[in-house]
């Protein structure tokens, strides 16, 4: 039976190769690595646990069937899976906005959901892309350590400077800076690895250009 390295690591390429060869352990490893990311982003996007579970299943089954098509030169496995999930989620979103929802748009999580009516003046495609970006970035933020997420939220949501965060939290300025620095570095590293964000939002995190 194939095993990852002792530290639990295995490259995306190796995992995909093993999955293509029918290795269920490698498939389980991929699930354990990326299911939380997919589930979190999809639930934030759809606001519907059942739909989210359906898309997560579809996405991993696509990995099981098409793992041999994975090419790490084109991006990470997480990015590939997010791309597949996004296509399916946006398809559902389009279907829903063509068919007005029967129920109240308020969802059980209190979040925006894909079936919510869209401003007629807005481009539904752009609206979906923006909400997908929001869902994925929020998921990435949720995966940061609590202390890093806290300083980042104060900086972005409350618009506080590093000195103001220090005063607000009572943390030494150096600690605030180092936490913020780690947080933005983690976040940028993750988001750059997910090229699915780039084409529909027009924002390229790799070089900051707008497509």
């Amino acid at each position, binding site marked *: 039976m194939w095993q990852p390295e002792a530290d639990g690591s295995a490259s995306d390429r190796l995992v995909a190769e093993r999955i293509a*060869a*029918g290795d*269920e352990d490698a*498939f*389980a490893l991929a699930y*354990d690595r990326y*299911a939380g990311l*997919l*589930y*979190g982003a999809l*639930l*934030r996007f759809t606001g519907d*646990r059942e739909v989210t*579970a359906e898309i*997560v*299943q579809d996405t*991993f*089954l*696509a990995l*099981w*069937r*098409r793992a041999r*098509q994975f090419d790490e030169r*084109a*991006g990470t496995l997480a990015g*590939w899976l997010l*791309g*597949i999930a996004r*296509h*399916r989620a946006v398809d559902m979103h389009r279907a829903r906005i063509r068919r007005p929802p029967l129920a109240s748009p308020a969802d059980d999580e*209190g*979040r925006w959901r894909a079936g919510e009516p869209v401003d007629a003046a807005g481009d539904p495609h752009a609206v979906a892309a*923006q909400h997908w*970006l*929001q869902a994925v*970035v*929020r*998921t990435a*933020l*949720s995966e940061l350590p609590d202390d890093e997420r806290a300083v980042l*939220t104060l*900086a*972005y*949501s409350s*618009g506080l*400077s*590093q000195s103001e965060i220090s005063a607000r939290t009572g943390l030494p300025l150096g600690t605030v*800076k180092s936490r913020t*620095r780690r947080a*933005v570095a983690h*976040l940028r590293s993750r*988001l*750059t690895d997910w090229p*699915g964000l780039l084409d529909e939002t027009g*924002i*390229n*995190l790799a*070089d*900051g*250009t707008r497509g």
Partner: protein
Amino acid sequence: MDHAEAHEHIADLALEPDRLTGFAASTAPPDVALREHATRCPRCATELAGWQALQRGVARALDEAAPGDLQRIAAPDDLRRAVLTGARSKHGTKRPWLGLPPRLGARLAAVALAVVLLAGGAIVIADQAGRLNASDAGRRALSGALQTTTQVLADPAHQAIALTAADGSANGTVAWNQHDLVVLATGLAVPADGQVYRCWVIAAGGETPVGQMELVDGQAFWVGALDGWASVDLQNAYRFAVTLETGTGGAVPAGPVVLEGALGS
């Protein structure tokens, strides 16, 4: 401002989103100096632009975010079981009817395909179901291809075309929906060592190689993606062809066309 100073100032700006937002119009001497440096240093310009993009993305993500929106969400345990059980079925499916022994499931999928296509009056795939005596890996790949075919055909928006050989020695199908594209063919001879069957999409701009077919006990197949990392682009394509190539093939077909069909017909 030299490169090291610029790099340090960018790192400081990355910590304060408001300063990044206002950077372009800032008159603070370090910001002015950095702007000047960035005009002649592509590396720093790229680095700065990357942080600005991150700042915009995070600002949008946090716009009107409730505290609960940033809580970690775990996938439920039963979902893990469902996904892994689906893979263990060897079909890679969550559909209950496919909890059948692998070979039987593959045969049913093949028969389903043949029935659907025959009902459409377009394509004949007569003997796929009886040719599954192959290695586990090959059989699994073929089973996956047939399962994908079944799902594609179940999609009301799917499209399918026939592939034919000029001499009638082989035939096949290309079926696709918005997510997957499947090529199935029967009657192709086992290629000689060093030869492969390659799939091509032909548009006005020329031929594009899209994949290499596998051959399992007489059944040739290939599955491509039309979403995610799309491996096939059907925009403006008007023909689909399979050729016999030497080696892994080049960027343009060099071998004989063994199957072809018109897209959109």
